[in-house]
């Protein structure tokens, strides 16, 4: 039994941490700037391509490349916000449409700059063997990054002034402003963190998938699904729970129907969750 079960657990853990890392920044923006940033997946793609370029073209150490590209992607997210989203504050539908445009630009600039051919990040951690099961280096790294982000998010939100203002803006932006919180500055931080975590998610994704210009965009529907499922409170453990429910459901569905419908199952879970929640609210 064990040999068949392990690959499923392995891919469950791997994809849950990837989805969590990809969704963290999206969720943060969804709750603070209050819109669905469709371009978020493309920020992840950008982060992954930057790491690949620094490693393969410039020849830097992987860890240095990782840190630099995470920071650069964060700054990039702030820049995009300053030149576009800033003008549309408080209009979620216009912001949603605008982010589709931003996503198109980022995605196809990547396409032009790096080409359409598949690339592979030439980086692998050694596999570890525990109790007879081989645990891949990618999985360990994904779990470490996921754990790091959730602990960091917990610390930031709970113990720092920045986290308090993020929570205040997420609860009620107008009230937060009237209490003297600089909403714009808080949003700038939120965008920076959002870009950083997207880049981490992109890097974890390319540990086990090839780099393609639309790899981040492919995940955006699942990211939106977990972000809606996680609810209206800014709580990252709920987000992790949402990720594991959706990925878990998709993994289990492999026993019953064809793999092509995986994403469809993710959505079926989202729809059921929305229905249950609205039934409970009544």
């Amino acid at each position, binding site marked *: 039994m064990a040999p068949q079960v392990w690959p499923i657990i392995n891919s469950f853990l791997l994809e849950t941490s990837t989805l969590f890392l990809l969704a963290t920044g999206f969720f943060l923006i969804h709750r603070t700037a209050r819109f*669905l940033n469709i371009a978020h997946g493309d920020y992840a793609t950008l982060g992954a391509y930057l790491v690949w370029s620094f490693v393969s073209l410039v020849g830097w150490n992987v860890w240095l490349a990782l840190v630099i590209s995470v920071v650069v992607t964060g700054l990039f997210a702030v820049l995009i916000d300053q030149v*576009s989203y800033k*003008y*549309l504050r408080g209009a*979620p*539908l*216009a912001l*949603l*449409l*605008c982010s*589709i*445009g*931003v*996503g*198109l*630009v980022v*995605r*196809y*600039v990547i*396409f*032009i700059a790096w*080409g*359409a051919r598949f690339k592979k990040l030439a980086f692998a951690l050694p596999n570890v063997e525990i109790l007879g099961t081989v645990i891949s280096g990618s999985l360990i790294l994904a779990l470490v990054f996921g754990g790091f982000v959730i602990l960091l998010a917990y610390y930031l939100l709970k113990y720092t002034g920045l986290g308090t203002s993020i929570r205040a803006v997420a609860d009620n932006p107008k009230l937060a402003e009237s209490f003297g919180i600089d909403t714009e500055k808080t949003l700038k931080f939120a965008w920076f963190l959002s870009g950083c975590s997207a880049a981490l998610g992109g890097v974890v994704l390319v540990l086990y998938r090839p780099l393609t210009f639309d790899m981040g965009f492919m995940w955006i*529907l699942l990211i*939106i*699904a977990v972000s*809606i499922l996680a609810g209206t409170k800014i709580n990252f453990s709920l987000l992790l729970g949402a990720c594991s429910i959706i990925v878990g459901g998709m993994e289990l569905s492999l026993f019953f129907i*064809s793999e*092509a*419908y995986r*994403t*469809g199952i993710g*959505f079926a879970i*989202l*729809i059921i969750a*929305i*229905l249950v929640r*609205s039934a409970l609210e009544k």
Partner: protein
Amino acid sequence: MTVAFIAFCLSFISLFLIYVILVLALNLQWGQAGILNFGLVGFVALGAYTTAICMLDPSTLAHVDVGFGLPFPVAFVIAIIVTGIIAWLVSAIVRLGLEELAIISLAFAEFLHVTISNEEWLTGGTVGIYISSLLDEKLDLLGYNVAFTVILLVAALLVYYFTTKLNFSQFGRIANAIRQDEIKAKSLGIDTVSHRMKIFVIGSMIMAAAGSLYIYFGLRAVPELYPVGLTFAIWIALILGGTGNNLGAVLGMGIYMLLDMLARLYLNIPGHPEIAAGLKFVIIGLLLVILIIRRPEGILGPKRSRYG
């Protein structure tokens, strides 16, 4: 001018007319009622595939197991009704928010795309379904294209008339009231959710009609005809031309298609095909961002009734 050239021009015009019907349907949903429908292409594909499956002659089945051999008018009506029911289900799921409806409709389109690419017994998978139309058998190339264009022109004019009429009717005024201030509309005793659902269903049925007509003349239904990009192309045309203004929507569609054709003809960089392919989308994306920030009302602003 050769016959082939005229036929080419006519097929271009008919494609434009199909897009005009789609942009008018989207304008009904977004411009009038403020509904974000990102699953446009899904409803088009649904109408097209339902028509194709209904029309497929059961005696000539090759790689598909289902076919009913119905005549086109019956298949057309069935396609619209089926899409209406599914659009109603999609909108009934998310009676709540507009953002949820946007995402669920996008997910629906994705799901439908996967289904039609994989369920070979029903849709022929990536090979698709080929149907034979009566016109195809009786007319030559030119006559065929003329007939197609005329029928589409009539259809587009009907949709234009219908959506404009709707905008200035009480139904449209209520929709405008909901879009402008939902809470106020509710306080006046309007059932905002069910009104919005009605508009979503009507718009989706028009989209299905466009898909159905196109399949009848295009003669084959394949998944590649319905990329997600088509949804965004129609969206950009609408935002370009003028949200809430039917004339603006048609104008926007015309400008979009002109830009698209110019990009195809002149945007060629030898040796770097990906630059030309990518640049088109970069320009579309930039255009979308700039328009939404600088001129959200489009080239022609919204045109509403005096009370709208």
